[in-house]
């Protein structure tokens, strides 16, 4: 009962918070491939073709008034960022210290540890597979700026990534040189890692195969029914594993994003406990069993069976 009384308000608060969040989700991985590429193999071929320009334009309608800041996320599905070998394939030491021995400390980064016998910085599969779709937005021809500062956790920026400059990064090579595969985005060799926030966000690996990562913030309110044009550079290959790509625009509440789960769970637990409390109450009222009545002891109730 008590649990119910406490939980239901909390749940309602959480639910309200979650409901106040406005979200626009646009799944674009199929739409952003020309319609003549029908089969999945063809799509993979398309995405791996570096020669073509893969810009695609999506029209988004703002359903409700969206208060700034509006967060821009990309959501990947069926993407196992939590796979054991993937998770391991990084060197936190290298990312933070970058100097001397730890620079070459790429043991854990297999299979992306060395390029031409030189250590890769940042090494490992995670960094190599950095997401490289880009988004830009316009409202009736006016550009809507996307702020890409401060999208990563401070602790990551300050404590996990150091003033280390990328080197030997395979994605920076000209396409297909040495037959090495381009995993994802290239890195700006003149910017230290702790300022490359896209990488920092990407490298906080997700717990589930469906995950969102913060891309940037739109620092202006969007009125309802505004037509927002999103220009997407569709580079990232999720086609070979049939992963979905979604563009998400979302506001936040005090609690966070749109997530009914907590609210619903609280309300459910609360309701169930109130219900059970009542049930017990009724049972006690209808079939009272005097407490501590020793005539209810098993050996007082039935003849002792030996």
């Amino acid at each position, binding site marked *: 009962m008590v649990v119910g009384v406490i939980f239901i308000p909390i749940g309602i608060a959480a639910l309200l918070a979650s409901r106040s969040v406005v979200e626009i989700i646009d799944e674009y991985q199929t739409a952003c491939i020309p319609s003549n590429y029908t089969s999945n193999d063809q799509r993979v071929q398309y995405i791996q073709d570096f020669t073509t320009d893969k810009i695609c334009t999506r029209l988004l309608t703002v359903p409700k008034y969206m208060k700034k800041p509006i967060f821009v996320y990309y959501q990947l599905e069926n993407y196992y960022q939590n796979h*054991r070998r993937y998770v391991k394939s990084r060197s*936190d030491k290298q990312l*933070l210290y970058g100097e001397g021995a730890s620079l070459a400390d790429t043991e854990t980064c297999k299979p992306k540890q060395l390029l031409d016998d030189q250590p890769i910085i940042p090494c490992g599969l995670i960094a190599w597979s950095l997401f490289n779709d880009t988004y830009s937005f316009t409202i009736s021809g006016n550009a809507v700026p996307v702020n890409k500062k401060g999208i990563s956790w401070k*602790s990551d920026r300050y404590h996990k990534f150091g003033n280390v400059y990328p080197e030997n990064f395979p994605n920076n090579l000209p396409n297909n040189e040495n037959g090495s595969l381009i995993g994802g985005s290239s890195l700006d060799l003149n910017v230290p890692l702790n300022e490359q926030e896209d990488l920092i966000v990407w490298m906080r690996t997700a*717990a589930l195969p469906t995950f969102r990562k913060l891309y940037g913030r739109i620092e202006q309110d969007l009125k309802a029914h505004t037509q927002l044009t999103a220009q997407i550079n569709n580079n990232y290959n999720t086609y070979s594993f049939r992963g979905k790509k979604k563009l998400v625009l979302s506001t936040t509440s005090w609690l966070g*994003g749109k997530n009914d789960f907590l609210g619903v769970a609280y309300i459910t637990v609360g309701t169930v406990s109130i219900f059970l409390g009542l049930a017990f109450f009724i049972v006690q009222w209808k079939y009272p069993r005097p407490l*501590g009545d*020793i005539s209810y002891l098993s050996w007082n109730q039935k003849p002792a069976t030996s």
Partner: protein
Amino acid sequence: MEFFKCSIGGVIYGKGVTEIEKAAARRNGTGIEEMESPAESHEKYFNFDDDRLMRGAWRNEPNPELCKEFFRCLAVCHTVLPEGDELPEKIVYQAASPDEAALVTAAKMFGFFFFRRTPTSIRVRESHVEKIGRMQDVEYEILNVLEFNSTRKRQSVICRYPNGRLVLYCKGADSVIYERLMERHNPFKDTNRDHLEYFGAAGLRTLCLAYRDLDINAYEMWNEKFVQAKSALRDREKKLDEVAELIEKDLILIGSTAIEDKLQEGVPVCIETLAKGGIKIWVLTGDKLETAINIAYACSLMNNGMKQFIINSDTKEIRDVEDRGDALETAQVIERYVAERLNESLRQAVESEQTQTGLELALVIDGRCLMYALDPELRGTLLKLSVMCKAVVCCRVSPLQKAQVTSMIKDGAKKITLSIGDGANDVSMIQAAHIGVGISGLEGMQAVMASDFAIAQFRFLTDLLLVHGRLSYLRISKVVAYFFYKNLMFTLTQFWFNLYTGFSGQRFYDDWFQSLYNVVFTALPVIIVGIFDKDVSITNSRKYPQLYKAGIENIFFRWRILIIWAISAVYQSVILFFFPIKAIEEGKNSSGRMLGLWDAGTMAFTCVVVTVNLRLFLACNFITRWHLISIFGSILAWFIFAFFYSGFRNPLDKQGNIYQVIFVIMGTWYFWYAIVLVPVASLALDFLHEGMRRWFAPYDYHIIQEEEKIKGVERDELLLVESPRQAPEQSLELTGLHGEMSKHTGYSFDSPCFDSFFASQEGVSMSQRSYDIARRASMRVSRRQSSDLGSDSPPPGHNSLI
């Protein structure tokens, strides 16, 4: 063995009340007023208080002469050797049996202090004989000793007073003495018989005392025959017996003694309590059949309402066959007899089980029959029968048989057995049983050395089982189940996670979390529960021995319980994995940032630690501050560890996965939401189950707990401080109650030659116990001399002469 009561000249002396009388009174519902036991100077072997006899007061009794004879008989007619200083306080009597020592001690206490024995005489310091307060040393010349043996059941001494009076003193079983009494001049014969019956019923061991004045001429004539018989080369024993018959007649009854073979204090109550607790009790004893049955009665193990199956080798047919002397034939006859009786008994037992409800059965079997009944062919029948019986008494069993019976129950009936005994002959049995308990007492330390538990008195067994045993069962089952649960739950969350990692085996929790989970974060509380948990108070544990049945039926550790724990573990693991992960899946905090794998893992782990620790609150029966300290301490330990672990970067760790994580997640609302919601949601099922259990199908201890809550708990007092380790018991062997009482009058004498009884069965001949007083007396003298010379030969115990 204590001198407890006596009857002299038709008057009963002695005020004590025996345990058995108390038990009987309790059974009948008539309480006996608790009488103060004689507190003054409690002498070993002597528990008697009656002002009419003590300190010379007997002179004022109706029969002072008879009293005098009574005391003299006690002081003279025995085979005891005095040792040590010849002072009443210091002297030690070396007797062949404690009974004898008790009788001589009694004489001493009455003022007839036997203090010296030479090969031909006995010296007694008599007080109050001529006059109150006057002491004199009297030397009785011992002319002949007619020794005890199990056929004669009596012992006589012919002695000459300093004044030349020639007397035969005789003591023995009532049956043999009564046969030999003079027709006339025995006015107390009938009253004495009543007294004997009364003593017997009270569980006392009785002896009749008688004397006969001898005429010097008749004696001389008889003595010649006696000397002849004594020097006979063939059948000496038989001839001696025959000669003794000639003189042990026309006796005049003096009275009877009653010795309490102290069943240890509280034994009947203890056994009754244990029986109520669902423990089945077997008595395995070396005593005679009648004695064993009497003990069983005394212990409330058997009563007259029971149907008894007695399988006894001492029947007429068997004796007849034995007399023919053909060992093989005897064996066959006994075997056939045992088989018949067993099958017949089993048939009747099954029948009565079907027809009459509530009729309790008892089986009494003696060692010789048991030897055949333990044959592989009959063993099954015996087992079936004995399992059906409420009480099983095996008498005259050898130490080996005790062990055999124990292992038969252990292996055959698949029950848990506990053996308790105090003597060296119980050692094999103690070792054969699952649990061996030794009583440290008069009979030496062998039993204790062989045992798993040693207690000082039989009655402490109640506490050992009902309090310590039951509690430790409770605790162990709880701890084991809890361990099972907490690891299953923890591992399952990991398993659920792997469904989402492409089955790659990625860890959900950090290595260190995982390794310290069992070692630190959830270790202490369960140990505390294992040490302190207690369902009902100790007083109530004793008050409701039936609670013990829970252990026998294994209520707290059967599959059902484990499955319930497992279901709870599965349910909780689902909640504990999915709730945190759902909570942060699409979540971001108000700054819009996303949480990652290690954030989820750490959050889930926090919930796991909190839940698992709080779960103990539901499992334990009462909460002390140690519970609180350990449970909240463990949760706190986790947080402290998490702060340290994510606060400092370990330079040796190549992957600082958890670095800073806890601070990040604690900065989100999700974390706080989850940490309240998840434990509550996951414990809800257990809470519900526990509540339903208590309400609709309460365990017995639940009800008693409620009673305690309402009425308050009496202060617990612990009798024993024992290591509380014990497993559940099903049947209990019991022995060590070496008492001898016969059914009606309680005849007793020196312990029968038990060893030779078995020796003769196995074909080993063993000389009867020697009562060659002269030899022993001279031995004593020689020892004294040798000790004067400074040699340090150890004094032989009385057993050395057996």
